[in-house]
């Protein structure tokens, strides 16, 4: 059959720009010498707003200080979906760079016309456009005559890497001074005129129904404005935050709940996960031209527990009704997506809902930010048009928010007589890793499941492999094994609520792959760095491994009680490359003394910002690997405070060294999730190096080490 030859790669717009082509939706100039940039991505402590400002200033040739960044809002911002998956710099950054390049051209054309000179004679410096002799104008002067109410066109070429002056250089983040000076910057610290305070009552036992509610106690509390009840959703609205807390406690005493639903056995997660009904998908398959003879097969099982996002701030939102319109202030990662879900629950057209972003604390994925926004909206219905601020408790944050899904991972490897890998089989059992709002025909927000006419509880799904996958993220090996078969079993029941936590399944899969590889290398008596390099073809991958090995002086001398291990991964198999070497000390507990990392994020726009994110990821991963595990009995989540859900403390934090391999000509990718998998694996491998035992169940605690010793 004759097919027309594909057009010689017609230029296309970056995805985010194609979805939001109007140039004025990204950028506006003022005649007073400022440019406002309006991205659809939001600041979650990762420094994105600064990196985007750098890109805009660079492409337009203006001083960074002239750039005003606008917070995302459904009223004004381009719709860029969700700020997640380390995609912001890739998506928003590229879109903005292209938009700015085109806008710059538009202004240059206008200036050339006004000044009566050729466009090539013009030059821009801090917004001043100058030509031959004394001819000059500026963005600010031309702002009123140039309309940006037009669509972006494909084919504009942004500056080449070497002529960028800001991108690629470390600059101070623009949000930091406020945060250090204690100025009200977080949503938690904003007060709206006439604002009331709300709290929602939630059951202790999983999914219990509210049977009866005696409101007398709460009614007697000073300052009470309303008690709200709709099915099992109940809450209070008060003049003061203190009053709301007291009323909530009174309401709790008056509540009678049904029995809850049975939770799994926390001590046998693998059996639970494997026994559940599931949907199976083949994620990857590679067949060998000729297969060797199998001399031996090794099979290992790895598990990761449920993990809490455990933001330092409890989730918070504000909402205000005006007739049948509602305005919502939120620290959600996706203002449009949240709006879509609110529209479903409220049965309102999206135009009636404005969702505006205000910064929250780090969320590390889909936490309760969206849930509390619906809480505020429902409570505010009874506030007579006054705004209501709702905030969760620490306990709620640790038990009612979605968790990162527990995983059981089995890897089976066929080895030939020389101990070389000839076939590789990787299977994952896990709940889905995504139940974000705004993506389905049903809402994903907690209160929606509690209403008198409830929406069905959403069962988490996995993003497709093309978007990096979910439970299967990073499960396809980056190594050049002759053949493999990768399979993912996504549970179709969900007794414990799960959704996106940093890396989705990436941390678990990299931990499993890098652990078994280490084991195979050790059995062959081969150096684990050499073994990895021998199985990799991708030079960027090899470079980070070589760089980290050199930086850590691989392999450091063997001392009693001290161990070293390496881990490597490329986030989502398409994002940042990261290799980590851990130095651990084994005493009463395992402590990580030092982490050395090398990363390649393509073009690092703000190198210090990238290092900051990698350091943070490495420390968080250490916390996950050594300490974290959501605890529960058969009725309820029991790890509802920092005592029961400990995270790494200052005295336990390792020294972290990060080396960046700059690649100015490569598209930038995000750094926030690159370190988790490699660091977890490096720690586990270092524990083996020190103690000679393989701990395959996270977190690596003293008990787990003793259990692993008993087994071996």
């Amino acid at each position: 059959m004759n097919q027309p030859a594909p057009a010689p790669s017609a230029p296309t717009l970056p995805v985010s720009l194609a979805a939001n082509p109007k140039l004025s939706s990204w950028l506006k100039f003022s005649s007073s010498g400022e440019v406002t940039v309006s991205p659809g991505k939001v600041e979650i402590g990762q420094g994105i707003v600064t990196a985007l400002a750098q890109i805009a200033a660079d492409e337009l040739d203006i001083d960074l200080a002239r750039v005003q960044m606008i917070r995302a809002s459904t009223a004004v911002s381009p719709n860029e979906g969700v700020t997640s998956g380390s995609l912001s710099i890739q998506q928003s950054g590229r879109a903005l760079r292209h938009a700015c390049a085109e806008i710059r051209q538009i202004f240059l054309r206008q200036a050339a016309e006004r000044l009566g000179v050729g466009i090539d004679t013009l030059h821009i410096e801090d917004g001043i456009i100058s030509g031959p002799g004394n001819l000059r104008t500026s963005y600010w002067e031309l702002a009123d005559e140039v309309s940006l109410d037009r669509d972006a066109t494909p084919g504009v070429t942004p500056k080449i890497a070497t002529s960028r002056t800001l991108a690629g250089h470390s600059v101070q983040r623009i949000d930091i001074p406020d945060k250090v000076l204690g100025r009200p910057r977080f949503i938690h610290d904003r007060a709206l005129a006439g604002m009331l305070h709300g709290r929602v009552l939630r059951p202790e036992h999983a999914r219990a129904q509210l049977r009866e509610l005696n409101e007398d106690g709460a009614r007697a509390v000073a300052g009470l404005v309303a008690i709200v009840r709709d099915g099992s959703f109940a809450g209070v609205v008060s003049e003061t935050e203190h009053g709301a807390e007291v009323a909530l406690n009174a309401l709790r005493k008056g509540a009678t709940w049904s029995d809850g639903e049975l939770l799994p056995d926390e001590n046998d997660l693998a059996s639970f996960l494997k026994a559940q009904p599931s949907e199976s998908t083949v994620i990857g398959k590679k067949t060998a031209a000729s297969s060797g003879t199998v001399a031996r097969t090794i099979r290992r099982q790895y598990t990761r527990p449920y993990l809490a996002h455990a933001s330092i701030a409890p989730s918070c939102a504000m909402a205000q009704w005006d007739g049948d319109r509602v305005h919502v202030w939120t620290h959600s990662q996706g203002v449009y997506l949240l709006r879509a879900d609110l529209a479903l629950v409220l049965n309102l057209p999206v135009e009636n809902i404005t969702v505006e972003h205000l910064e929250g604390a780090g969320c590390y994925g889909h936490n309760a930010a969206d849930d509390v926004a619906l809480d505020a909206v429902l409570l505010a219905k009874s506030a007579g048009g006054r705004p209501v601020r709702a905030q969760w408790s620490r306990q709620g944050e640790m038990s009612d928010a979605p968790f990162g899904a527990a995983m059981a991972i089995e890897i089976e490897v066929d080895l030939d007589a020389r101990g070389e890998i000839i076939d590789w089989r990787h299977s994952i059992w896990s709940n889905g890793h995504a139940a974000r709002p705004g993506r389905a025909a049903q809402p994903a927000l907690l209160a929606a499941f509690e209403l008198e006419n409830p929406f069905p509880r959403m069962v988490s799904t996995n993003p497709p492999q093309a978007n990096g996958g979910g439970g299967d993220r990073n499960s396809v090996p980056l190594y050049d094994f002759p053949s493999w078969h990768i399979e993912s079993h996504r549970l179709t029941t969900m007794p414990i609520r799960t959704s996106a936590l940093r890396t989705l399944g990436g941390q678990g899969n990299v931990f499993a792959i890098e652990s078994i590889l280490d084991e195979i290398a050790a059995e062959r008596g081969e150096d684990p760095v050499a073994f990895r390099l021998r199985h990799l073809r991708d030079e960027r991958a090899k470079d980070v491994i070589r760089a980290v090995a050199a930086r850590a002086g691989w392999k450091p001398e063997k001392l009693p009680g001290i161990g070293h291990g390496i881990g490597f991964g490329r986030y989502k198999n398409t994002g940042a490359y990261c290799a980590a070497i851990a130095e651990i000390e084994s005493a009463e507990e395992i402590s990580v003394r030092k982490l050395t990392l090398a990363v390649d994020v393509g073009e690092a726009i703000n190198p210090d910002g990238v290092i900051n994110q990698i350091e943070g990821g490495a420390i968080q991963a250490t916390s996950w690997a050594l300490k974290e595990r959501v605890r529960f009995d058969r009725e309820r989540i029991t790890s509802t405070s920092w005592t029961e859900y400990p995270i790494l403390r200052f005295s336990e934090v390792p020294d972290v060294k990060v080396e960046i391999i700059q690649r100015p000509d490569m598209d930038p990718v995000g750094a926030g999730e690159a370190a988790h998998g490699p660091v977890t694996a490096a720690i586990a491998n270092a524990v083996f190096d020190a103690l000679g035992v393989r701990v395959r169940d996270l977190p690596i605690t003293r008990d787990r080490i003793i259990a692993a010793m008993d087994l071996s």
Partner: protein
Amino acid sequence: MPSVRFRLNGVELEIDADPDRSLLDILRGHLGMTGPHFGCGAGECGACNVIVGDRAISACDTPLWSVADKDVTTIEGLGTSEQPHPLQRAFIAEQALQCGYCVSGILMSAAALLRRNPSPISREVKEALDRNLCRCGSHNRMVRAVLRAAEEMAAE
């Protein structure tokens, strides 16, 4: 309603409120002072830390009555935009945070440490901050920033 007198960032105050209410609730709810943050309400995270006398304490589990006649310092009293405290300057210079929600409490623990011990070593800084949690993993930068501030203060 009984009243409680104390000094807040150098200013004498008299608060008419139930003396059993938490200092944090008084600061944020009553006085609209949002520098100290709520994180857990149980003395477990340090997001709400303030200095009372010369020690950093968690305001969320400190009853109002217990600060009667004492000096209370919050992040608002540490430095200003025009004249930031050396710690604040150092946190900016080291870019010592990610989301920054934990930072106001951490700065107060660090400030109390530097009052007691103007030239701490790294281990002492970690000990002084050990009751403060940071979920973003900015610990090492924060320790560096505290050491930097101590050096600057010694040089001044």
